[in-house]
């Protein structure tokens, strides 16, 4: 568990490199297969609309998996993540066009903890809406 970032080199407020993650219907089909979550709200427009959604939506767990990449890419070793939690506040709506949707993630160090750990607060937006709330990770740095 060796992060490449040193605890001494970060301060409260240190921003992690932001990243954007595109998601299309094809992405969702692939994620459904890999995760085993075949809920039709993630691939069947007719079904999604019948249950009151605006369109097909991304798996919350897909958005959660993308957001933490800002932290794991920064830390180097994904094994440095010791805690990670989110609230699913809004769905990521994925239209069936050439664009799909974009998940935009920013993150900053919110607190320095003991044992070389820091708490990172994440923000994930899609179409201008906050899609994850209370999104926090605890990472053990070098």
């Amino acid at each position, binding site marked *: *568990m*060796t992060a490449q970032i040193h605890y001494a080199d970060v301060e409260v407020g240190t921003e992690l490199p932001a990243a954007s*993650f595109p998601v299309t219907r094809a*992405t969702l089909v*692939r*994620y459904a*297969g*890999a*995760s*085993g*979550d075949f809920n039709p709200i993630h691939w069947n427009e007719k079904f999604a609309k019948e249950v*009151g959604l605006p369109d097909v939506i991304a798996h*919350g*767990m*897909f958005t*959660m*998996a*993308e957001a*933490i*990449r800002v932290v*794991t*890419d920064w830390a*180097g*070793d*994904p*094994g440095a*993540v*010791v*805690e*990670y*939690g*989110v*609230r*699913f506040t809004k769905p990521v709506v994925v239209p069936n066009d050439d664009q799909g949707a974009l998940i935009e993630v920013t993150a900053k160090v919110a607190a320095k903890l003991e044992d070389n750990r820091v708490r990172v607060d994440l923000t994930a937006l899609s179409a201008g809406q906050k899609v994850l709330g*209370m999104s926090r990770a605890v990472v053990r740095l070098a």
Partner: protein
Amino acid sequence: MALDQTFVGRTYPPTEPYEVGREKIREFAVAVGDENPVYTDPEAAKAFGHQDVIAPPTFVFAITFAAAGQVIEDPQLGLDYSRVVHGDQKFAYVRPVRAGDRLTVTSTIEAVKSLAGNDIIDIRGEVHDESGEHVVTAWTKLVSRAPEEA
């Protein structure tokens, strides 16, 4: 209909072991577009001190959520799964999940609430490997939305 409060604290029997495969981890990493070599190259993983390739942080959800099926489908609990959405998700890792792990999950109902007609249930999944080592804890909040008025 409000869920039965007496289910709070109920623990379900551990699941049969799930064997984590290198190719399944690779498939998951590709699906989330993550090219970190720690997920696919054992040498890259070893450079960080891991015994084998590790899984992305959220990979284990597929295993804990399948285990939570024992709770969700418990006919005595009576959760309306067709109206369920995922509210919150949290993980606390003792170590990363890695290829070769044989993982069992023990699910416990931590809380049952009703708010504005919505049924809310908190499930904790404790994940252990074959040697009994605690690997990760997953907390899953599910919300069964109140039916719309006709």
